[in-house]
């Protein structure tokens, strides 16, 4: 206190200073237990240092002790909003390593599930984005629509979020007899609700003012930081694994990779909204054409991968997800590495928020769509 007084006496001016605020681990806008050490000057953000690890659960270490089919249920719990994509990544990786070709039916169902999970994730993101900006009503509208998808999941997979549906060699169950009807009903329903999202939030002048030109992440930075998914695509970084390294039924469908070159928060927002439309298109192309066949290939009781290294990339709702398995020929992997999209996205935050206000920091963090277990693993 006395130091400040001295400064005031000396300079005849009001002394101002930088200060640091801990945002998190318990903070409403970090959506989990992430700690951001924010250096502020008044309202202006000077530096953001993410500190993660609060829910580091050592999944990679746990994977080394269990067999390949057992890894599936752990991947559910990393990025719980794209649980099915994570399952699929492991399943595809193991299938590739064993050189098993799954039936087309499996591929179709997996892709439909992927897109449903992506929709559910983007819906939740939309809810939370609205809430972070202070529009609390969006939260309930988004959850209301997400409930329909979760019901589809629950009926077919038996769980709402941690689905554990893709297994090495196929699927856990065949689809439920109601599945196709339910999905079609949902698409019909959601096509009426999605324009409402635009009316309520996207067009809103307050949202536009708050997002336009905020949180600039240039094309070069997006690649340098490895920011993938909708966040990367909003910077013009064409990083859609579905397009560049197609897997499952993605080679069979026509869809656009949503790219935006405005690089700001609004671009990231709109890319996600457009991706929801695109996901609906993909599901519509597939849902009526699910081929007949088995829902799984008969696999051995104990899966042993040949010695070697296997990598599989998939596109989750947050970006590129990778599974890297180092196998020494035993029934459990020697080393498993999950390349999670949130991890890379998080560290671009500092670059994007410099010079903006606290409120912008919240908005930018929200458009990166961070899931903390995905970062910490």
């Amino acid at each position, binding site marked *: 206190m006395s130091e400040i007084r001295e400064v005031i006496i000396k300079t005849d001016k009001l002394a101002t200073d930088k200060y640091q605020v801990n945002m998190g681990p318990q903070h409403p806008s970090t959506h989990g237990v992430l700690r951001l050490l924010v250096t502020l000057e008044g309202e202006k953000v000077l530096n953001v240092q993410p500190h993660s*690890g609060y829910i*580091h659960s050592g999944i990679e*270490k746990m994977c080394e002790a269990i067999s390949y089919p057992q890894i599936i249920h752990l991947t559910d719990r990393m990025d719980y909003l794209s649980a099915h994509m994570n399952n699929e990544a492991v399943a595809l990786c193991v299938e590739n390593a064993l050189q098993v070709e799954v039936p087309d039916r499996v591929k179709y169902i997996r892709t439909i599930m992927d897109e449903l999970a992506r929709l559910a994730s983007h819906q939740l993101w939309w809810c939370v984005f609205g809430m972070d900006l202070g529009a609390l009503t969006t939260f309930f509208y988004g959850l209301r629509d997400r409930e329909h998808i979760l019901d589809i999941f629950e009926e077919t997979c038996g769980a709402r979020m941690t689905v554990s549906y893709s297994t090495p060699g196929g699927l856990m169950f065949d689809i439920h007899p109601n599945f196709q009807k339910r999905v079609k009903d949902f698409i019909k329903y959601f096509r009426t609700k999605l324009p409402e999202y635009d009316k309520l939030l996207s067009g809103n002048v307050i949202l536009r003012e708050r997002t336009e030109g905020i949180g600039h992440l240039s094309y070069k930075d997006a690649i*340098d930081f490895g920011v993938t998914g909708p966040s990367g695509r909003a910077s013009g970084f064409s990083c859609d694994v579905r397009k560049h390294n197609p897997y499952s039924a993605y080679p069979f469908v026509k869809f656009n990779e949503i790219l935006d070159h405005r690089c700001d928060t609004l671009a990231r927002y709109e890319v996600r909204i457009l991706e929801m439309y695109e996901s609906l298109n993909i599901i519509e192309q597939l849902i009526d054409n699910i081929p007949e066949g088995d829902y799984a290939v008969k696999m051995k009781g104990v899966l042993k991968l040949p010695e070697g290294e296997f990598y599989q990339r998939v596109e989750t709702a947050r970006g590129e997800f990778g599974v*890297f398995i180092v196998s020494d020929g035993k029934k459990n992997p020697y*080393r498993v*590495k999950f390349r999670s999209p949130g*991890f890379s996205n998080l*560290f671009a935050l500092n670059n994007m928020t410099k010079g903006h206000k606290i409120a912008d920091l919240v908005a930018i963090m929200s458009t990166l769509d961070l899931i903390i277990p995905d970062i910490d693993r």
Partner: protein
Amino acid sequence: MTKEELISYLTGNFPEAEVKSGAQYAEMTVKASDLHETAVQLKDTAELSFDYVFCLTGVDYAENMGIIYHIESVEHRHTIVLKVRTADRLNPVIDTVSDVWITAKYHEREAYDLLGIHFNNHTDLRRLFLEDGWGFPLRKDYVDEIRIVER
């Protein structure tokens, strides 16, 4: 470039490195001392322009530590797996590539945190997830009698 073209190009231009065709991607193993130079070349050569590191994995091999970089070129859409081994297992040291690819900075921090691999010239080498003095859980000889239950 296709995988085969890439392999032949790499064999021609990196005589020191050992290039082979992996199951999915072209694989290149370099000596630890050449790592940084190779990284710069991989990124700056116009025909290669590997600019997007999408995965960086540290692996504890029994005799030494391995670091595996999965790198893609956004422009040419070809992918390479760059592998390097440290000399020592207990005190593994390797040059950082975080000045070449920014994202490697955080992946290297993770590798340091979980495997204890020390990266030379890294500007911010701190633990990422765990507390200081925790140990390196992804090493094969890591024991934690309280939290790990052997079955």
